[in-house]
């Protein structure tokens, strides 16, 4: 492999690596959002149960 070929390969690897790093960052962020959704869903599920336990105002 000549020097030029090594540098050209390095350039394309840099492009690929940066795009891959970006995709990994987005994937990590989506995982965090998924956890947040689960947390919210848990909170929504708990709320009706709490409302049932509370005495309803009459009159």
């Amino acid at each position: 492999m000549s020097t030029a070929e090594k540098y050209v390969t390095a350039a394309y690897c840099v492009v690929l690596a940066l795009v891959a790093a970006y995709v990994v960052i987005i994937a990590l962020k989506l995982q965090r959002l998924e956890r947040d959704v689960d947390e919210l869903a848990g909170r929504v599920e708990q709320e009706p149960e709490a409302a049932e336990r509370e005495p309803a105002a009459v009159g």
Partner: protein
Amino acid sequence: MSRRSASGDLPQSLEVGRTYRIPLPALAAFSAVLVTVAAVLVFFVAPNDADQGFSQRIFYFHVSIALTAYACFAAGAWKALVHLWKRDPRADLESYVAVHQGVIFGSLVLMTGSIWAKISWGHWWLWSENQLVLFLVLFLFYAAYFMLRYSVDPGPQRANLSAVYALFGVVLIPVSFLAIRLAQHFIHPIVFTRHGPSFGGWILVTYCVAQVAMLVLAYTLYRVELAGKRLDARLRELKEVLA
């Protein structure tokens, strides 16, 4: 962000969103295919340049990434103008994401350009080259956009300041693009002249495919990031509603 809608209890941003004709998975698959085809053309089909030899192959991605970065900055400025003009709440986030994509592609331009400079000139960087320095100025200008944006609390003031900044930056794009033509010393190669591109045949075909691939890739990443940001904002507001 915390404004409530007139129609109900949900915050206004929960009700806004843009529908796109092309679904995101299809767009992602299309960009992956295009980038692969472009890479195959670059390494296996395009002939060696008579003057620069094998190292010229960097230009297929380097030039197309540079033009894509300009397009991203221009899109960010356009969305900033829409925000200032129509007070569209979606435009601020879209402008931010477009500028972010521009900075990512801008950093790729600087890295691939430096590698090519090392092969051809024997230096990673030359401060005497107007084209390089002006692109660096453009890149740093938009990198500072994030410092400005995150130094102000979220709200209309931050959106307006960011929009004005993004709009001013667009002036640097033609300056950076034309610098190579206005410079006295032509060290940096000129790809596009007044009479069209300075190449033809498979080199032109490969460049066109690479350019389309980079634009589609940038648009895909823009859509992915925008979807994530919108989801994040909506979740934060839902948490506030449920708190």
